[in-house]
Protein backbone atom coordinates (compact mmCIF):
# COMPACT_ATOMS: atom_id res chain seq x y z
CA UNK A 1 0.00 0.00 0.00
CA UNK A 2 1.40 3.31 -1.07
CA UNK A 3 1.97 6.43 0.95
CA UNK A 4 -0.83 8.32 -0.80
CA UNK A 5 -3.28 5.48 -0.27
CA UNK A 6 -2.59 5.86 3.43
CA UNK A 7 -2.95 9.63 3.38
CA UNK A 8 -6.19 9.41 1.43
CA UNK A 9 -7.50 6.52 3.53
CA UNK A 10 -7.77 4.06 0.66
CA UNK A 11 -6.23 1.00 2.25
CA UNK A 12 -7.72 -1.95 0.44
CA UNK A 13 -7.66 -5.65 1.20
CA UNK A 14 -4.63 -7.32 -0.42
CA UNK A 15 -5.04 -9.77 -3.29
CA UNK A 16 -4.30 -13.46 -2.86
CA UNK A 17 -1.26 -15.13 -4.40
CA UNK A 18 -2.58 -18.31 -6.00
CA UNK A 19 0.37 -19.77 -7.92
CA UNK A 20 2.68 -20.64 -5.02
CA UNK A 21 0.29 -23.51 -4.25
CA UNK A 22 1.76 -25.47 -7.18
CA UNK A 23 4.98 -25.97 -5.19
CA UNK A 24 3.13 -28.32 -2.81
CA UNK A 25 3.80 -31.65 -4.63
CA UNK A 26 7.56 -31.15 -4.20
CA UNK A 27 7.10 -30.58 -0.44
CA UNK A 28 4.92 -33.68 -0.25
CA UNK A 29 7.74 -35.83 -1.63
CA UNK A 30 10.09 -34.51 1.06
CA UNK A 31 7.51 -35.17 3.75
CA UNK A 32 6.80 -38.69 2.50
CA UNK A 33 10.48 -39.48 3.02
CA UNK A 34 10.01 -38.50 6.68
CA UNK A 35 7.05 -40.87 7.07
CA UNK A 36 4.13 -38.51 6.49
CA UNK A 37 1.36 -39.80 4.20
CA UNK A 38 -0.93 -37.42 2.30
CA UNK A 39 -4.60 -38.32 2.88
CA UNK A 40 -5.60 -36.96 -0.51
CA UNK A 41 -7.76 -34.27 1.01
CA UNK A 42 -7.31 -30.53 1.25
CA UNK A 43 -9.40 -27.41 1.72
CA UNK A 44 -9.80 -23.83 0.64
CA UNK A 45 -10.92 -21.48 3.41
CA UNK A 46 -12.46 -18.14 2.59
CA UNK A 47 -14.52 -15.43 4.16
CA UNK A 48 -18.27 -15.46 3.67
CA UNK A 49 -19.34 -12.35 1.76
CA UNK A 50 -22.88 -11.08 2.02
CA UNK A 51 -25.08 -11.35 -1.04
CA UNK A 52 -25.31 -14.22 -3.49
CA UNK A 53 -22.30 -13.47 -5.70
CA UNK A 54 -19.84 -15.51 -3.63
CA UNK A 55 -22.24 -18.43 -3.34
CA UNK A 56 -22.56 -18.51 -7.12
CA UNK A 57 -18.77 -18.53 -7.46
CA UNK A 58 -18.54 -21.31 -4.90
CA UNK A 59 -21.16 -23.41 -6.69
CA UNK A 60 -19.20 -22.97 -9.94
CA UNK A 61 -16.05 -24.19 -8.21
CA UNK A 62 -17.86 -27.22 -6.80
CA UNK A 63 -19.14 -28.08 -10.27
CA UNK A 64 -15.66 -27.88 -11.81
CA UNK A 65 -14.05 -30.01 -9.10
CA UNK A 66 -16.69 -32.72 -9.00
CA UNK A 67 -16.42 -33.10 -12.76
CA UNK A 68 -12.80 -34.22 -12.46
CA UNK A 69 -12.63 -38.01 -11.96
CA UNK A 70 -11.93 -39.32 -8.47
CA UNK A 71 -12.62 -36.03 -6.68
CA UNK A 72 -15.40 -35.30 -4.26
CA UNK A 73 -16.05 -31.90 -2.79
CA UNK A 74 -17.86 -30.94 0.40
CA UNK A 75 -18.69 -27.61 1.88
CA UNK A 76 -18.68 -26.63 5.55
CA UNK A 77 -18.90 -23.46 7.61
CA UNK A 78 -17.09 -22.63 10.82
CA UNK A 79 -18.13 -20.49 13.75
CA UNK A 80 -15.96 -17.57 12.59
CA UNK A 81 -18.02 -17.02 9.43
CA UNK A 82 -15.63 -18.73 7.01
CA UNK A 83 -16.47 -21.32 4.38
CA UNK A 84 -14.36 -24.40 3.77
CA UNK A 85 -14.44 -26.18 0.43
CA UNK A 86 -12.90 -29.59 1.05
CA UNK A 87 -11.65 -31.69 -1.84
CA UNK A 88 -11.01 -35.40 -1.32
CA UNK A 89 -9.31 -37.53 -3.94
CA UNK A 90 -9.73 -41.28 -3.69
CA UNK A 91 -6.36 -41.87 -5.37
CA UNK A 92 -4.54 -39.53 -2.95
CA UNK A 93 -2.86 -37.88 -5.94
CA UNK A 94 -1.34 -34.67 -4.64
CA UNK A 95 -0.83 -32.86 -7.93
CA UNK A 96 -4.44 -33.61 -8.85
CA UNK A 97 -5.51 -32.28 -5.45
CA UNK A 98 -3.54 -29.08 -5.94
CA UNK A 99 -5.13 -28.59 -9.36
CA UNK A 100 -8.57 -28.99 -7.80
CA UNK A 101 -7.75 -26.53 -5.01
CA UNK A 102 -6.47 -24.10 -7.58
CA UNK A 103 -9.71 -24.45 -9.53
CA UNK A 104 -11.62 -23.55 -6.39
CA UNK A 105 -9.57 -20.52 -5.43
CA UNK A 106 -9.22 -19.19 -8.96
CA UNK A 107 -12.96 -19.29 -9.60
CA UNK A 108 -13.42 -17.26 -6.41
CA UNK A 109 -10.66 -14.87 -7.45
CA UNK A 110 -12.19 -14.50 -10.92
CA UNK A 111 -15.46 -13.44 -9.33
CA UNK A 112 -13.56 -10.71 -7.47
CA UNK A 113 -13.26 -12.42 -4.10
CA UNK A 114 -9.50 -12.82 -4.09
CA UNK A 115 -9.29 -10.70 -0.95
CA UNK A 116 -11.70 -13.04 0.86
CA UNK A 117 -9.35 -16.05 0.58
CA UNK A 118 -7.78 -16.84 3.95
CA UNK A 119 -5.85 -20.09 3.70
CA UNK A 120 -5.64 -23.47 2.06
CA UNK A 121 -4.72 -26.77 3.70
CA UNK A 122 -3.27 -30.05 2.51
CA UNK A 123 -3.88 -32.83 5.02
CA UNK A 124 -1.36 -35.52 6.01
CA UNK A 125 -1.16 -38.31 8.54
CA UNK A 126 1.88 -38.19 10.79
CA UNK A 127 4.07 -41.30 11.33
CA UNK A 128 2.27 -41.55 14.71
CA UNK A 129 -1.11 -41.60 12.96
CA UNK A 130 -2.29 -38.11 13.87
CA UNK A 131 -3.65 -35.50 11.47
CA UNK A 132 -1.23 -32.88 10.19
CA UNK A 133 -1.85 -29.89 7.96
CA UNK A 134 0.39 -27.93 5.63
CA UNK A 135 -1.32 -24.54 5.57
CA UNK A 136 -0.94 -21.99 2.79
CA UNK A 137 -1.53 -18.31 3.62
CA UNK A 138 -2.91 -16.65 0.48
CA UNK A 139 -2.07 -13.08 1.42
CA UNK A 140 1.53 -13.76 2.32
CA UNK A 141 2.26 -16.46 -0.24
CA UNK A 142 3.83 -18.64 2.45
CA UNK A 143 3.24 -21.99 4.10
CA UNK A 144 3.33 -23.17 7.70
CA UNK A 145 2.85 -26.54 9.37
CA UNK A 146 -0.02 -27.15 11.77
CA UNK A 147 0.03 -30.22 14.02
CA UNK A 148 -3.10 -30.32 16.20
CA UNK A 149 -2.84 -32.38 19.34
CA UNK A 150 -5.59 -33.41 21.72
CA UNK A 151 -7.38 -30.64 23.61
CA UNK A 152 -6.54 -27.64 21.37
CA UNK A 153 -2.80 -28.01 21.83
CA UNK A 154 -0.24 -28.01 19.07
CA UNK A 155 2.77 -30.25 18.69
CA UNK A 156 5.24 -27.42 18.18
CA UNK A 157 8.33 -29.60 17.97
CA UNK A 158 6.82 -31.61 15.13
CA UNK A 159 5.86 -28.38 13.36
CA UNK A 160 9.39 -27.03 13.64
CA UNK A 161 10.78 -30.35 12.45
CA UNK A 162 8.57 -30.20 9.33
CA UNK A 163 9.64 -26.61 8.73
CA UNK A 164 13.16 -27.92 8.30
CA UNK A 165 12.01 -30.74 6.01
CA UNK A 166 10.07 -28.62 3.52
CA UNK A 167 11.90 -25.30 3.73
CA UNK A 168 13.82 -26.02 0.52
CA UNK A 169 10.63 -26.83 -1.41
CA UNK A 170 8.10 -24.17 -0.41
CA UNK A 171 8.40 -20.67 1.08
CA UNK A 172 7.90 -20.98 4.84
CA UNK A 173 6.27 -18.16 6.80
CA UNK A 174 9.20 -16.62 8.69
CA UNK A 175 7.04 -14.81 11.28
CA UNK A 176 6.02 -17.48 13.81
CA UNK A 177 3.17 -15.29 15.11
CA UNK A 178 1.45 -15.79 11.74
CA UNK A 179 1.31 -19.56 12.24
CA UNK A 180 -2.36 -19.37 13.18
CA UNK A 181 -4.07 -22.34 14.74
CA UNK A 182 -7.06 -23.57 12.73
CA UNK A 183 -8.85 -25.77 15.23
CA UNK A 184 -11.57 -27.94 13.80
CA UNK A 185 -10.56 -27.43 10.17
CA UNK A 186 -11.82 -30.22 7.89
CA UNK A 187 -9.58 -33.28 8.16
CA UNK A 188 -7.60 -31.76 11.04
CA UNK A 189 -10.04 -32.28 13.90
Amino acid sequence: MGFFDSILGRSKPPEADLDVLFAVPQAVISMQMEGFTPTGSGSVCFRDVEGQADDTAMADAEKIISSSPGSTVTRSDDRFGFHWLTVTRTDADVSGLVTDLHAANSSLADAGFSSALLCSTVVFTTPAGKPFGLVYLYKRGTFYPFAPDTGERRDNSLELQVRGVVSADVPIEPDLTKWLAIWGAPGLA
Partner: protein
Amino acid sequence: MARSRFRGDRGLTFRMGGVGLGLGVLYLVFAAVLYQTPVGAFGFVIVLAIAWGQWYFSDSLALKSMSAQVVEPHQAPELHAMIDRLCALADMPKPRVAIAVTDMPNAFATGRTPNHSAVCVTTGIMQRLDADELEGVLAHELSHVANRDVTVMTVASSIGLLAGFITRYGMYFGGMFSGGRDRNNNNGGPAFIVVFLVSLLVYAVSFVLIRGLSRYRELSADRSGAYMTGRPSKLSSALVKISGDMARIPNKDLRDSQAMSAFFFAPAISRESIGALFSTHPPLQQRLDNLAKVSAELSEQG
Protein backbone atom coordinates in the same frame (compact mmCIF):
# COMPACT_ATOMS: atom_id res chain seq x y z
CA MET B 1 -8.12 -12.63 -14.95
CA ALA B 2 -8.60 -11.96 -11.29
CA ARG B 3 -10.30 -8.70 -10.52
CA SER B 4 -10.93 -6.91 -7.31
CA ARG B 5 -14.32 -5.88 -6.08
CA PHE B 6 -12.73 -3.07 -4.15
CA ARG B 7 -13.57 0.28 -5.63
CA GLY B 8 -12.32 3.52 -4.20
CA ASP B 9 -14.86 6.21 -3.50
CA ARG B 10 -13.59 8.95 -5.78
CA GLY B 11 -15.80 11.65 -4.29
CA LEU B 12 -14.54 10.85 -0.82
CA THR B 13 -10.93 10.88 -1.99
CA PHE B 14 -11.40 14.29 -3.61
CA ARG B 15 -13.07 15.77 -0.57
CA MET B 16 -10.34 14.41 1.67
CA GLY B 17 -7.66 15.74 -0.66
CA GLY B 18 -9.43 19.11 -0.71
CA VAL B 19 -9.53 19.36 3.06
CA GLY B 20 -5.88 18.30 3.26
CA LEU B 21 -4.89 20.91 0.68
CA GLY B 22 -6.89 23.57 2.54
CA LEU B 23 -5.12 22.72 5.79
CA GLY B 24 -1.75 22.77 4.05
CA VAL B 25 -2.33 26.24 2.56
CA LEU B 26 -3.70 27.54 5.84
CA TYR B 27 -0.66 26.30 7.72
CA LEU B 28 1.79 27.72 5.20
CA VAL B 29 0.18 31.15 5.54
CA PHE B 30 0.26 30.81 9.29
CA ALA B 31 3.91 29.77 9.27
CA ALA B 32 4.75 32.76 7.08
CA VAL B 33 3.12 35.11 9.59
CA LEU B 34 4.73 33.42 12.59
CA TYR B 35 8.12 33.56 10.94
CA GLN B 36 8.03 37.33 11.52
CA THR B 37 7.97 37.05 15.31
CA PRO B 38 10.06 35.31 17.99
CA VAL B 39 6.88 34.22 19.75
CA GLY B 40 6.10 32.00 16.80
CA ALA B 41 9.38 30.14 16.86
CA PHE B 42 9.12 29.55 20.60
CA GLY B 43 5.56 28.28 20.45
CA PHE B 44 6.41 26.20 17.41
CA VAL B 45 9.05 24.19 19.26
CA ILE B 46 6.82 23.58 22.28
CA VAL B 47 3.79 22.54 20.29
CA LEU B 48 5.81 20.34 17.98
CA ALA B 49 7.22 18.55 21.03
CA ILE B 50 3.73 18.08 22.47
CA ALA B 51 2.37 16.77 19.18
CA TRP B 52 5.31 14.41 18.75
CA GLY B 53 4.84 13.08 22.27
CA GLN B 54 1.14 12.55 21.69
CA TRP B 55 1.88 10.69 18.49
CA TYR B 56 4.76 8.60 19.78
CA PHE B 57 3.01 7.49 22.96
CA SER B 58 -0.47 7.45 21.42
CA ASP B 59 -1.13 3.78 22.15
CA SER B 60 -0.12 3.76 25.80
CA LEU B 61 -1.66 7.20 26.46
CA ALA B 62 -5.00 6.25 24.97
CA LEU B 63 -5.13 2.92 26.78
CA LYS B 64 -4.21 4.58 30.05
CA SER B 65 -6.76 7.38 29.74
CA MET B 66 -9.49 4.79 29.18
CA SER B 67 -7.94 2.61 31.95
CA ALA B 68 -7.98 -0.28 29.51
CA GLN B 69 -6.17 -3.54 30.19
CA VAL B 70 -4.14 -5.31 27.53
CA VAL B 71 -5.44 -8.88 27.34
CA GLU B 72 -3.51 -11.97 26.32
CA PRO B 73 -4.94 -14.72 24.06
CA HIS B 74 -5.79 -16.98 27.01
CA GLN B 75 -7.78 -14.20 28.71
CA ALA B 76 -9.95 -13.38 25.69
CA PRO B 77 -9.59 -16.27 23.24
CA GLU B 78 -12.62 -15.39 21.07
CA LEU B 79 -11.60 -11.76 20.65
CA HIS B 80 -8.03 -12.73 19.81
CA ALA B 81 -9.13 -15.40 17.34
CA MET B 82 -11.34 -12.86 15.58
CA ILE B 83 -8.52 -10.31 15.31
CA ASP B 84 -6.04 -13.01 14.23
CA ARG B 85 -8.22 -13.96 11.29
CA LEU B 86 -8.91 -10.38 10.28
CA CYS B 87 -5.19 -9.61 10.36
CA ALA B 88 -4.46 -12.70 8.26
CA LEU B 89 -7.10 -11.61 5.73
CA ALA B 90 -5.75 -8.07 5.57
CA ASP B 91 -2.10 -9.15 5.89
CA MET B 92 -1.30 -6.68 8.64
CA PRO B 93 0.62 -7.06 11.89
CA LYS B 94 -1.55 -7.94 14.86
CA PRO B 95 -2.11 -5.01 17.20
CA ARG B 96 -2.22 -5.31 20.96
CA VAL B 97 -5.70 -6.11 22.19
CA ALA B 98 -7.18 -4.31 25.17
CA ILE B 99 -10.47 -4.30 27.02
CA ALA B 100 -11.83 -1.33 28.96
CA VAL B 101 -14.31 -2.10 31.70
CA THR B 102 -17.05 0.44 31.09
CA ASP B 103 -20.66 0.16 30.10
CA MET B 104 -20.22 2.75 27.33
CA PRO B 105 -20.42 0.76 24.07
CA ASN B 106 -17.38 1.81 22.11
CA ALA B 107 -14.13 0.74 20.51
CA PHE B 108 -11.02 2.58 19.38
CA ALA B 109 -7.71 1.98 17.70
CA THR B 110 -4.54 3.90 18.36
CA GLY B 111 -0.81 3.74 17.78
CA ARG B 112 1.82 5.53 15.74
CA THR B 113 2.42 2.77 13.18
CA PRO B 114 0.69 -0.54 12.42
CA ASN B 115 3.54 -2.22 14.31
CA HIS B 116 2.93 -0.16 17.44
CA SER B 117 -0.81 -0.14 17.61
CA ALA B 118 -3.53 -1.24 19.95
CA VAL B 119 -7.20 -1.99 19.49
CA CYS B 120 -9.48 -1.53 22.46
CA VAL B 121 -13.07 -2.55 22.98
CA THR B 122 -15.24 -1.81 25.98
CA THR B 123 -17.15 -4.44 27.90
CA GLY B 124 -20.28 -2.47 27.00
CA ILE B 125 -19.82 -3.05 23.25
CA MET B 126 -19.08 -6.74 23.74
CA GLN B 127 -22.34 -7.19 25.66
CA ARG B 128 -24.48 -5.35 23.14
CA LEU B 129 -23.19 -6.71 19.83
CA ASP B 130 -23.21 -10.26 18.51
CA ALA B 131 -20.02 -11.83 17.17
CA ASP B 132 -20.50 -10.74 13.55
CA GLU B 133 -21.24 -7.15 14.48
CA LEU B 134 -18.27 -7.01 16.82
CA GLU B 135 -16.12 -8.31 14.00
CA GLY B 136 -17.38 -5.50 11.77
CA VAL B 137 -16.42 -2.97 14.42
CA LEU B 138 -12.97 -4.54 14.85
CA ALA B 139 -12.42 -4.43 11.09
CA HIS B 140 -13.33 -0.73 11.13
CA GLU B 141 -10.76 -0.14 13.88
CA LEU B 142 -8.09 -2.19 12.08
CA SER B 143 -8.74 -0.02 9.01
CA HIS B 144 -7.97 3.04 11.10
CA VAL B 145 -4.63 1.39 11.89
CA ALA B 146 -4.00 0.49 8.23
CA ASN B 147 -4.89 4.04 7.15
CA ARG B 148 -2.50 5.43 9.77
CA ASP B 149 -5.19 7.70 11.08
CA VAL B 150 -3.39 8.58 14.28
CA THR B 151 -0.43 9.91 12.30
CA VAL B 152 -2.59 11.74 9.78
CA MET B 153 -4.76 13.36 12.44
CA THR B 154 -1.77 14.30 14.59
CA VAL B 155 -0.02 16.00 11.69
CA ALA B 156 -3.24 17.66 10.61
CA SER B 157 -4.06 19.02 14.03
CA SER B 158 -0.59 19.95 15.27
CA ILE B 159 -0.52 23.42 13.72
CA GLY B 160 -4.10 24.00 14.79
CA LEU B 161 -2.84 23.15 18.26
CA LEU B 162 -0.13 25.80 17.87
CA ALA B 163 -2.68 28.39 16.78
CA GLY B 164 -4.83 27.54 19.76
CA PHE B 165 -1.80 27.71 22.03
CA ILE B 166 -0.87 31.19 20.82
CA THR B 167 -4.46 32.35 21.04
CA ARG B 168 -4.67 31.24 24.64
CA TYR B 169 -1.22 31.92 26.11
CA GLY B 170 0.39 34.14 23.49
CA MET B 171 -0.57 37.32 25.35
CA TYR B 172 1.95 36.58 28.11
CA PHE B 173 4.78 35.80 25.75
CA GLY B 174 3.82 38.71 23.53
CA GLY B 175 4.07 41.06 26.49
CA MET B 176 7.34 39.50 27.57
CA PHE B 177 9.02 39.75 24.20
CA SER B 178 7.80 43.21 23.31
CA GLY B 179 8.80 44.39 26.78
CA GLY B 180 12.25 42.84 26.65
CA ARG B 181 13.53 43.20 23.16
CA ASP B 182 11.64 45.95 21.48
CA ARG B 183 12.09 48.55 24.16
CA ASN B 184 13.28 51.14 21.68
CA ASN B 185 10.45 50.86 19.22
CA ASN B 186 6.75 50.35 19.60
CA ASN B 187 6.34 47.67 16.92
CA GLY B 188 6.07 44.78 19.40
CA GLY B 189 2.50 45.51 20.47
CA PRO B 190 0.82 45.92 17.07
CA ALA B 191 2.85 43.03 15.55
CA PHE B 192 1.65 40.80 18.30
CA ILE B 193 -1.95 41.78 17.85
CA VAL B 194 -1.66 40.76 14.19
CA VAL B 195 -0.22 37.37 15.20
CA PHE B 196 -2.96 36.97 17.78
CA LEU B 197 -5.72 37.71 15.32
CA VAL B 198 -4.20 35.47 12.63
CA SER B 199 -3.85 32.66 15.19
CA LEU B 200 -7.46 33.05 16.19
CA LEU B 201 -8.55 32.85 12.58
CA VAL B 202 -6.27 29.88 11.80
CA TYR B 203 -7.51 28.09 14.89
CA ALA B 204 -11.15 28.56 13.93
CA VAL B 205 -10.71 27.54 10.29
CA SER B 206 -8.42 24.60 11.06
CA PHE B 207 -10.90 23.38 13.67
CA VAL B 208 -13.63 23.07 11.06
CA LEU B 209 -11.28 21.51 8.49
CA ILE B 210 -9.86 18.97 10.96
CA ARG B 211 -13.36 17.92 11.96
CA GLY B 212 -14.14 17.48 8.28
CA LEU B 213 -11.04 15.37 7.76
CA SER B 214 -11.97 13.25 10.76
CA ARG B 215 -15.43 12.58 9.32
CA TYR B 216 -14.02 11.59 5.94
CA ARG B 217 -11.57 9.21 7.56
CA GLU B 218 -14.41 7.57 9.46
CA LEU B 219 -16.19 6.94 6.16
CA SER B 220 -12.96 5.54 4.70
CA ALA B 221 -12.50 3.21 7.64
CA ASP B 222 -16.12 2.07 7.30
CA ARG B 223 -15.50 1.20 3.65
CA SER B 224 -12.18 -0.57 4.20
CA GLY B 225 -13.55 -2.43 7.20
CA ALA B 226 -16.60 -3.56 5.24
CA TYR B 227 -14.41 -4.89 2.43
CA MET B 228 -12.23 -6.65 5.00
CA THR B 229 -15.08 -8.67 6.51
CA GLY B 230 -17.21 -8.82 3.37
CA ARG B 231 -20.24 -7.99 5.48
CA PRO B 232 -21.06 -4.27 5.42
CA SER B 233 -24.56 -4.89 6.76
CA LYS B 234 -23.18 -6.25 10.02
CA LEU B 235 -21.26 -3.02 10.55
CA SER B 236 -24.44 -1.07 9.73
CA SER B 237 -26.44 -2.95 12.30
CA ALA B 238 -23.67 -2.43 14.87
CA LEU B 239 -23.77 1.31 14.12
CA VAL B 240 -27.52 1.46 14.51
CA LYS B 241 -27.40 -0.43 17.80
CA ILE B 242 -24.63 1.70 19.24
CA SER B 243 -25.90 5.05 18.03
CA GLY B 244 -29.23 4.34 19.65
CA ASP B 245 -27.49 3.49 22.87
CA MET B 246 -25.10 6.44 22.80
CA ALA B 247 -27.95 8.95 22.83
CA ARG B 248 -29.34 7.46 26.02
CA ILE B 249 -26.12 7.68 27.98
CA PRO B 250 -26.00 10.49 30.52
CA ASN B 251 -23.57 13.29 29.80
CA LYS B 252 -21.77 12.90 33.11
CA ASP B 253 -20.01 9.76 31.91
CA LEU B 254 -19.18 11.20 28.54
CA ARG B 255 -17.33 14.30 29.63
CA ASP B 256 -14.25 12.32 30.68
CA SER B 257 -13.64 10.94 27.25
CA GLN B 258 -14.26 13.98 25.10
CA ALA B 259 -10.62 14.58 24.29
CA MET B 260 -10.38 11.13 22.74
CA SER B 261 -13.54 11.34 20.75
CA ALA B 262 -11.81 11.61 17.37
CA PHE B 263 -10.56 8.05 17.58
CA PHE B 264 -13.76 6.48 18.82
CA PHE B 265 -15.97 4.21 16.82
CA ALA B 266 -19.06 6.31 17.50
CA PRO B 267 -18.71 9.79 18.98
CA ALA B 268 -19.24 10.00 22.69
CA ILE B 269 -21.11 13.29 22.43
CA SER B 270 -24.83 13.52 21.89
CA ARG B 271 -25.59 14.64 18.39
CA GLU B 272 -28.10 17.36 19.15
CA SER B 273 -25.62 19.43 21.12
CA ILE B 274 -23.28 20.37 18.25
CA GLY B 275 -23.80 21.13 14.62
CA ALA B 276 -22.82 18.63 11.97
CA LEU B 277 -19.96 20.91 10.92
CA PHE B 278 -18.21 20.47 14.24
CA SER B 279 -18.73 16.77 14.76
CA THR B 280 -15.86 14.28 14.51
CA HIS B 281 -18.08 11.54 13.06
CA PRO B 282 -20.40 11.67 10.05
CA PRO B 283 -24.13 11.38 10.67
CA LEU B 284 -25.46 7.85 11.02
CA GLN B 285 -27.50 8.03 7.82
CA GLN B 286 -24.43 8.98 5.77
CA ARG B 287 -22.48 6.06 7.19
CA LEU B 288 -25.32 3.64 6.46
CA ASP B 289 -25.64 4.90 2.87
CA ASN B 290 -21.88 4.53 2.44
CA LEU B 291 -22.03 0.92 3.65
CA ALA B 292 -25.05 0.13 1.49
CA LYS B 293 -22.97 1.10 -1.54
CA VAL B 294 -20.24 -1.37 -0.51
CA SER B 295 -22.86 -4.05 -0.01
CA ALA B 296 -24.17 -3.51 -3.52
CA GLU B 297 -20.68 -3.75 -4.99
CA LEU B 298 -20.00 -7.01 -3.14
CA SER B 299 -23.19 -8.72 -4.27
CA GLU B 300 -22.94 -7.80 -7.95
CA GLN B 301 -23.19 -10.95 -10.04
CA GLY B 302 -20.68 -11.90 -12.67
